[in-house]
């Protein structure tokens, strides 16, 4: 039997909007993935440490505070420094379309904005996780 995909859903930054993160965590779990959810206010360093410790295949970063351009690339940078850049990194939240190219250039593989469905995200993870 194939091993389950392991995903870390994390909330970098200081905002408390966890409705989306929790929904995605639960939807991924319902889709048969193993999901770890960090809770609020995680630093890039703590997210990367958890990801490595939990040996995840993917990290989903949910942020609605507007600090995405500062914090998301930092997670990617730290993954690289730890030699863990094979972990699939994606983001979601209230992120203006014009910021998405910058985030993609800085190691965020995909960005899901309001209105994205859980099936899109599940499909994306299944397609891109390297096993």
């Amino acid at each position: 039997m194939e091993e389950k995909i392991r995903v870390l859903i994390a909330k970098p930054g200081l905002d408390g909007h966890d409705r989306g993160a929790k929904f995605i965590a639960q939807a991924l779990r319902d889709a048969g993935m193993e999901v770890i959810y960090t809770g609020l206010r995680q630093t890039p360093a703590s997210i990367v440490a958890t990801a490595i410790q939990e040996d995840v295949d993917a990290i989903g970063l949910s942020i609605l505070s507007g600090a995405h351009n500062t914090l998301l690339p930092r997670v990617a940078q730290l993954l690289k420094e730890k030699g863990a850049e094979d972990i699939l990194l994606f983001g979601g939240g209230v992120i203006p379309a014009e910021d998405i190219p910058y985030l993609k250039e800085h190691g965020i593989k995909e960005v899901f904005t309001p209105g994205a469905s859980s099936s899109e995200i599940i499909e994306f993870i299944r397609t891109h996780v390297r096993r």
Partner: protein
Amino acid sequence: MSIQEEAARWYNQVYRKSVEKFPERKPRFSTSFGEEIAPLYYPQTESEEASRLYMEKLGFPGEYPYTRGVQPTMYRSRLWTMRQYAGFGTAAEANRRFKYLLEQGQTGLSIAFDLPTQIGYDSDHPMSDGEVGRVGVAIDTLRDMECLFEGIPLDKVSTSMTINTTASILLAMVIAVAEKQGVSPAALEGTIQNDILKEYIARGTYRFPPKPSMRLITDILAYCSKEVPKWNSISISGYHIREAGSNAVQEVAFTLADGLAYVEAAIKAGLAVDSFAPRLSFFFAAHNNLLEEVAKFRAARRLWAKIMKDRFNAGSKSQVMRFHTQTAGSTLTAQQPDNNIVRVAIQTLAAVLGGTQSLHTNSRDEALSLPAEDSVRIALRTQQIVAYESGVADTVDPLAGSYAVEHLTDLIEEKAAAYIDQIDELGGMVEAIESGYVQREIQKSSYQVQKAIESGEMVVVGLNKFQMEEEPPENIMRLDPAIQEAQIASIRIVKAERDEREVKRTLAAVRAAAASTENLMPPILAAVKAYATLGEIVDEMKAVFGEHKETIIL
């Protein structure tokens, strides 16, 4: 007494007295065909039974159980306060937006603070990186607050501040600025949110554990009841509970349960219920389901009045539920954002027909970013159109007696009361939150709704039906990334200019008060006046209180 006799009593005693004090907006309200519109409509029946039921369930506006509204004349005398939540960047920029809103006819201020300010980090703290000035204005010291209110007379403009963990510090800063303007604390009008329990359930800007946080709140309630008597010392918020995904019943139930917990804590701390409960205010969301929302507001008012009367034997002023409403951000779509203007208009009607005391209307672009100035203007105009053109403000509680609305009002009250009983059984709201019960209930609802949207069972126009190809939106609001550096530089200047010995002395007093049972407000006020930073004051409390660790509920 028959309803007719009750009505005559109400008109002669209650209504007449109220109109003398608060004259109506027009000498005569009339229909398009010239007939006069009465202040109030009520059942025309001689039946004793119908009369008894009417008095028990609805009563007259300004009277128990307040189902029909908290004042006798409601909007016929004074429209609700139009209060747009705003603030971003530095204090100087926020000051400019406030002045713009006041010029546009807004009647009160509602201040958004950035997340570091809300959680208690200075702008130069590593946790603040990228967050400074983003979702609200950054406040580090009294200097920033002086700048925020520059040219805004605090005895004329009421200020509402969305601040919880650090409410004591921000309130102290307002008091200190007011003193500099020559305004006494007794004349200050405004609100601090100061509702920590919903932070653990839904909003997430907690810092200290629940128990010391509750103590901080009772300190504020006690201080305000003596020193800042016109200040609303807490705004018990269902808005965020609803935004986290709960339904209308849960919004009412969990908000009132939070309220109950504060009342109980304050009584336990030795305060008399009628010394603080009249200053409690509430904050709800307004969603798209117009009739259900109107019923929700009416049910909440009635249930709170009953609870205050029956459980606490509180006087009439303490039974009154005054509330602010914000249209629901979670109903806005990033797709076809102009459609949001229509959603907000419906939600505005819901809030007004539900008898709100103040209202924030969301801007169409809030699913995309902070609102642009023209979007904020349309949102404010929406309120003005409902106020001046729709006619719904011309008679009190116009939907009363509608079979649907009254049925829904009864149903929401009944189901919310059952939740409150359940929470009582769990040992009260603090315990229900610590055990994760409340969070799980909200999450269940939230998951169901999102699934229903994804399956198309619940239609969201433009999102899962009637979609179209769109260009990415233009002109979205951007913040200057230099704000963080500017803010850090200004902390440095304040620190260089202040009297360090005075700062040390006042901070030590904050810590000593935190470790004792002494009220924390006076030492916090002294530290603020010495230009101690927000982060420094929070650190003193943290040293005694510790920090809250989230229980992950999934």
